[in-house]
């Protein structure tokens, strides 16, 4: 029993030593409190509204697919580049451009117009090929696959103005609008159908896909894709070819199209399921 008590004392004291060292031998750093989570519903402050705009711009709105410094497919909006100051700052000058024929009177209206009616003014050099910069390749953001609500478009404008460092003129939407806009802008959920997935990743912005109403012609038309896919790259089955074209688009570029146009990070952004659905759709429905 004596031994037992001795070792118990020994163990207890040893643990206490470790406890003491942890408490008094080292400084007690109080770690940072968890960051405040953004409030998604209810009333929004302007800052949150702007942040929401940023999220849409970089996510759901698919804007950065083209408006990025890498591809050069569209004018830069947030950064200043060779197109001049960020859009929030240069919008006011656009209205004064002799080629401008739209209805906007203010910078805010101009950005709004560009989002819902992209062809109202096309920046020189960025029109659809062969249209002499009268038709924009950009899809209207309030329709189709992107389908932003008014509140969301407003948020994007606010974000663009804030990024440019100019006065944010957009008014906070009242009532239910932000609440409705917010969940949509929350983290993207996995698409449930191939059609949805096409929309989510903005495929129709550039490609025309059989069975889907609108489509662009920046990239190849997918009519007949499944029958020709097998013959594109030696050694790749049609399915593998389509997969490669999505995951690493620059591995093979169809003749007549610019390499580097298709975003290279789609593979990372898509969930496995979405990729599956898309491939399946393209295999089955493009004849």
């Amino acid at each position: 029993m004596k031994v037992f008590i001795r070792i118990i004392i020994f163990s207890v004291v040893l643990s206490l030593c470790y406890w003491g060292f942890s408490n008094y031998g080292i400084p007690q750093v109080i770690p940072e409190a968890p960051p405040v989570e953004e409030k998604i519903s209810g009333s929004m402050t302007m800052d949150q509204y702007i942040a929401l705009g940023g999220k849409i711009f970089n996510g759901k709105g698919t804007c950065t697919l083209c408006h990025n410094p890498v591809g050069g497919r569209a004018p830069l909006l947030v950064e200043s580049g060779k197109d001049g100051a960020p859009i929030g700052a240069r919008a006011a000058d656009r209205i004064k451009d002799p080629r401008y024929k739209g209805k906007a009177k203010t910078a805010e209206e101009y950005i709004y117009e560009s989002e819902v009616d992209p062809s109202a003014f096309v920046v020189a050099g960025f029109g659809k090929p062969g249209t002499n910069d009268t038709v924009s390749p950009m899809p209207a953001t309030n329709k189709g696959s992107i389908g932003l609500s008014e509140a969301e478009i407003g948020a994007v404008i606010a974000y663009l103005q804030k990024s440019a460092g100019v006065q944010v003129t957009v008014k906070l939407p009242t009532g239910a609008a932000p609440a409705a806009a917010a969940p949509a802008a929350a983290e993207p959920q996995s698409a449930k159908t191939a059609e949805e997935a096409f929309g989510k990743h903005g495929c129709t912005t550039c490609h025309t896909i059989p069975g889907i109403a609108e489509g662009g012609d920046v990239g190849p038309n997918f009519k007949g894709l499944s029958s020709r896919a097998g013959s594109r790259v030696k050694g790749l089955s049609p399915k593998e070819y389509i997969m490669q074209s999505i995951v690493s688009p620059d591995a093979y570029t169809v003749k007549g199209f610019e390499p580097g146009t298709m975003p290279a990070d789609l593979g990372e952004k898509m969930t496995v399921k979405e990729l599956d659905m898309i491939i399946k759709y393209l295999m089955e429905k493009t004849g």
Partner: protein
Amino acid sequence: MGFLGKGLFKGVSFRFTSLTACLFLIFFASTLILPISHNASLSLKPAFATESPAPAGEHAAPVLSKAEGKPEEGKKEGEGKFTYQPAPKIKVEDYPIVKGFNSRIAVWIVAQLHLFFGAFVLAVPIFVLVIEGVGLATKDERYDHMAHEFIKVSMTAFSITASLGGLLSLMLVSFYPDFFKYMAGIFGKTMIIYALLFFGESFCLYVYYYGWDRMNEGFSKWLHLTMGLMLNVFGMTLMVLSNTWVSFMMAPSGIDDAGVFTGDIWAAIRGPLWNPINLHRFIANIAFGGSIVGAYAAFKFLSAKTDEEKAHYDWMGYTANFIAIFGFLPLPFAGYWLMKEVYGYSQQMGITAMGGAFAWLFIIQAVLIGSLFLGANYYLWCGMGRIKGSERYTPAIKYLIVVIVGCFLVWFTPHTLIMTSKEVTQVGGTHHPVLGFLGVMSAKNTAVNILIVSTFLSFMLYRRSNKIATASWTSTGNALQVALFAGGAINIVTLGVYGYFIPANIRIGLSIPQVMTTLTIIIVSSVLDGFMYKGAKSTGPIEWGKMGQRSQYALFLLAVSFTWLMGLMGYVRSALRQHWHVYTVFRDNSLDAYTPTLGYAAGIITIAVYIFIALVIFAFWIANFSAKKHAEASH
């Protein structure tokens, strides 16, 4: 009377074990059924069949089917797959409050205790199996008896583990229902497998234990060993499976940004941290088991009345310590791998661990590991006293001790020094021109490697104590070994110093050649020794039992420090997730989402360690109780 006592014990133990196992299962099953039974219209069968446990409850409103407006069944797609839900966003109010309980502390302590016992229950069968095998191979009865003695302890520990596991799942369900539902939604299948495996393990354990005396001849002994092997296989699988949940929480995989499960359970299991954690825990379990057994032996040694008993428990303590050190030496490397994967998974998480609030935790860790090394070495040195012929090697110990303590000092010198304002001005800033060098990774890696090499050297000297090599090439062999150790040490130190002159990203890679050097030294010199001392002349037997009492306290130090260290590492692994239940996916919005200070954590760990010690004593006491009855009965 004696017979009755024995039977009684067996009965109680058996009932206890099976009762807790059943309870455990019921908890698991209930956690799966619970969410579904809320939603009465969903039958049990499709839920299981489709791995869709459908989070229910008021706040998890968008139940899988709501979107489609058909509440009876989940939305079906082309291939008949169910859609999974994103990780719920929950608020403070969604965490149930049970009066009188702090949910975090309760879950923390219970989970930690479950892990302690889990490790013990996993480690002891490995230990027992190995020893039984050794006994069979050497025909030394002592081994067999020791193995038998230990599996008995394992029985009680097994029950405690099961009860704690049940308690833990009960607590998770009641304190963190949404979290548990989400996890069950993804890992439902594995949880069922887990429960089944648990049955398998129980079965093997019973057969293994109760069949010990019956199955000890010829073929049946082999059958018995196979049973032991199966027991271990089940145990390991259990651990590996439960690791998936932990590694998923730290580094989720198989889900998308919103936490929606892709349906590929293998992808969810095979997260980036899964294997590092598996390896780390496996090795740590061995060391942990060894150290606990060592403490047991030490206790028995200290309270032994006869020389015979003393010799037996001395020998047992030595064997256990050997296994503990054996498991302990590679542990830092497994830790490095884990840390490397953590960095690879998220640099954020890596910096949080090494540079942020937890930087000081690694100083505590250094003190603990340093104490372990000192304790283990001290035990070996003391042990040399009972071996005739060891006098040849004792003079070397003073150098070893200087090197070990020196490395230890380097290891715990923190990067950020605590200085009074006066000292800051004397040093000329918060960065110390000399000690600053010791605070960075290059120095730490070097110190650890040298520490390991020195410990191994201690062990080698111990092994050689009563032997004189008779091989013809002994002097060449010795020279080779000296060269090996010297060259290796120089290589490790040079690499460490070189680390200061190169960019950090290359420097990280230097730890690999350092580790390789250490391993090379250990392996090559072991092999050399093996050949050299084949048929060596003995200078005398090891006089088991002639060991000072002090050395036994070193074994206690090992056990307590190791337990404490496990608690600490458990804390940091968990705390790295910060305010996330599932890192970056499922946010912890409870009141306890903040990370506590290290002092606070140390308090909780200490409490957990005390409870653990108490429970272990209980387990040993029960085992002892039976042994006494057994002895009485046979008299």
